[in-house]
């Protein structure tokens, strides 16, 4: 499509042990007091020690908030905001998975300008300025370091999103050292999640554009080429680095060309069965690809060049086949559940899942092939 608006994070640093530069970077952003937002798991794993030391050595007064919870509740965001106010933070660093980065975004926003969290749910309701913000992802991943969205869980257990270009950080810092300890299942789920971001951005009906296309292609090349490697050799730093980069590029792509049916069908699995987001996506990915085939053959054929570089195909149909086959085999060999029944779903749940998936209309409308209720139910049933 020739008309588009593209927004992204203005500065990316990709460097093994780059987290040791956080102090210098805070100084560059003119911050002497910062809040580091992270989660208890990373604290226990000792991953915060070196970055905190680096901050102190640079003379930056860093306060740690390490109580981020998964699917962050609004109260927890408020606690983090209080922590930032108490230490008079001049900048915020998010270090962790998607939940920590989302929390950090909101802290920077709410401390930069007095406004109630409840008043900014929705699109472009937030007001700036925000505090300077550095995002350091530890999974590859959500791509949250380059998206303009933060999701919180309200007191009534609803998921609410804040969408604003103010949420793009000043700097996304990719340090592969922080990801070498990820368990294989987490590497696998988050890696597939990132691939889904790239695939759905590339086939999105509404805002697909040349920039998101170029980024999605390169993301898929890196992710497809390195996911097996990080599972085989968790300490393979170049492969870990390429996964982080692929995840970020996929994030840049889908931030501007939104995801579609895979995500729409995945959300209810998270909501009702607490299936991790990446796994939910992985469970429904292959049936959705097969479902989309009649409408997306040409685009999937183009993606074949990214996942199977150097390979030639006699026709578009064969290239499309090869792409779907590649993704099918890749998901199959991942060390996680393959069927909905493995995560507790029974045949009785399918109607409820279908109802909820159909409610995610904002994403379904981006799908290359329209999804009816029957279609959605059939997709779930096929992987029960």
């Amino acid at each position, binding site marked *: 499509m020739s*008309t*588009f608006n593209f927004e*992204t994070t203005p*500065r990316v640093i990709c460097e093994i042990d780059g987290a040791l530069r956080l102090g210098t970077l805070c100084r560059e952003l003119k911050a002497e007091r910062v809040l580091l937002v992270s989660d208890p798991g990373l604290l226990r794993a000792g991953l915060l020690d070196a970055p905190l030391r680096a901050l102190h050595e640079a003379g930056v007064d860093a306060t740690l908030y390490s109580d981020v919870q998964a699917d962050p509740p609004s109260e927890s965001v408020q606690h983090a905001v209080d922590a930032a106010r108490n230490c008079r933070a001049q900048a915020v660093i998010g270090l962790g998975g998607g939940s920590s980065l989302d929390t950090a975004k909101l802290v920077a926003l709410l401390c930069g300008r007095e406004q109630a969290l409840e008043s900014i749910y929705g699109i472009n309701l937030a007001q700036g300025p925000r505090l300077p913000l550095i995002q350091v992802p530890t999974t590859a991943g959500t791509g949250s370091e380059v998206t303009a969205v933060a999701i919180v869980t309200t007191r009534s257990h609803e998921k609410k999103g804040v969408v604003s270009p103010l949420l793009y950080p000043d700097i996304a810092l990719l340090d592969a050292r922080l990801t070498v300890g990820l368990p294989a299942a987490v590497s696998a789920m988050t890696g597939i999640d990132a691939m889904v971001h790239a695939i759905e951005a590339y086939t999105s009906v509404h805002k697909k554009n040349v920039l998101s*296309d*170029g980024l999605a292609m390169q993301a898929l090349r*890196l992710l497809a080429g390195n996911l097996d490697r990080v599972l085989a050799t968790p300490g393979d730093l170049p492969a870990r680095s390429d996964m982080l980069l692929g995840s970020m590029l996929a994030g840049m792509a889908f931030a501007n060309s939104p995801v579609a049916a895979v995500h729409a069908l995945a959300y209810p699995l998270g909501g009702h069965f607490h299936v991790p987001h990446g796994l939910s996506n992985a469970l429904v990915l292959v049936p959705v690809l097969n479902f989309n085939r009649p409408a997306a053959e040409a685009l999937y054929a183009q993606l074949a*060049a990214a996942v199977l570089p150097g390979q030639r195909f006699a026709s578009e149909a064969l290239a499309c086949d090869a792409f779907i086959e590649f993704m099918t085999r890749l998901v199959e060999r991942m060390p996680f559940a393959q069927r909905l029944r493995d995560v507790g779903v029974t045949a009785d749940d399918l109607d409820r899942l279908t109802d909820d998936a159909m409610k995610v209309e904002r994403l379904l409308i981006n799908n290359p092939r329209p999804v009816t209720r029957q279609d959605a139910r059939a997709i779930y049933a096929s992987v029960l």
Partner: protein
Amino acid sequence: MSYEFRSVPRIVCEAGALHSVGKVLRDLGAQRVMLVCDPGIVSLGFAVMAQASLEVAGCAVTVFDQVVPDPSSAVVKEAAEQARQFKADGVLGLGGGSSLDAAKLVALLINSEQPLEALYGTDNALGQRIPLVLVPTTAGTGSEVTWVSVITDEQQRKQAVYSSQMMPDVAVLDPQLTLGLPARVTAATGLDAMVHAIEAYTSRTRKNPIADGLAAAALGLLSANLRKVLANGQDVAARTAMLQGSLMAGMAFVNASVAAIHGLAYPLGARFHIPHGHANALVMAPVLRFNLSAAQHQYAELATYLLPGRHFEHEAEAAEAFVQAIEALVADSGLETRLSKLGVDEPALTEMANSVVLNLRRLIDSNPKDMTEQDVEALYRSIF
């Protein structure tokens, strides 16, 4: 493995986007805007369009329309002084690379106590700039997404300012502004953009996977559309693709560096006032052929974007096809290809070769194959 990637945070691409440029600046908080352009932009009526859009959005406007190709330091200082007098709080650059480069410096100088000369080189600027929006009217320099300005000093030398603060807030692409470009300008600027993509992809110093993805996508767009816009300048879709390709090539090269083609082109511009794009086009094919032995692998990779659908038996064949395709494109561009026909005298060849290795070492360092002074002179002679 360590690199940084900087990007303009927002890109707007839409036919007719110049009409909404006022709102874009207003959204950045600007109320008193200086429009920086050249007399050609005024006579085309684009300056009036931009001014009207700014005034409708409630901005006061002053126009500096005296930018010249390879702008002199005196012109930049004059523009900055006018901006100061006007108390501008925003700058809109509209035009080719020269106007955009001048606009960046004005936005930086207006609040700075540093003289322009103190900024020459890398990261010497101390202050922050005022809001800056850039609208290219050629496809192009990619200047709308770089933090580089090239100007001509009082001794007629090219001086480059690299300063990350000069990255604009928004790049606006409006293909309508390029429909009337003369074929000669279309060809020169289009080839310039292709050089950006190629040199970024083969950079020996700062090549990185993000720039690679953008360069590859850019080259695909540019090569598929350059002949189309030369055949029919009114082809809006092809003009749009050229602007997009130029922008992506700009994002790539500013993060990866350009190399010897630019090195050999600069003296042709500085001494003989050959337009920058044309100067690149002159030396492009010979340098690629010179590099072939060292860059065979990368040129073979680029062949898949330049010549999609073509099959090659081996890497050497693909790389040769790549260089031949560029040679054919330059030959078909309608641009003069001999230096002697462009006012260059023979004794100058030796002096220019000396000046390249002496003053532009950083560009030779990024070239895939090293170049001696003799190599440079031989290359100049081959196109004399």
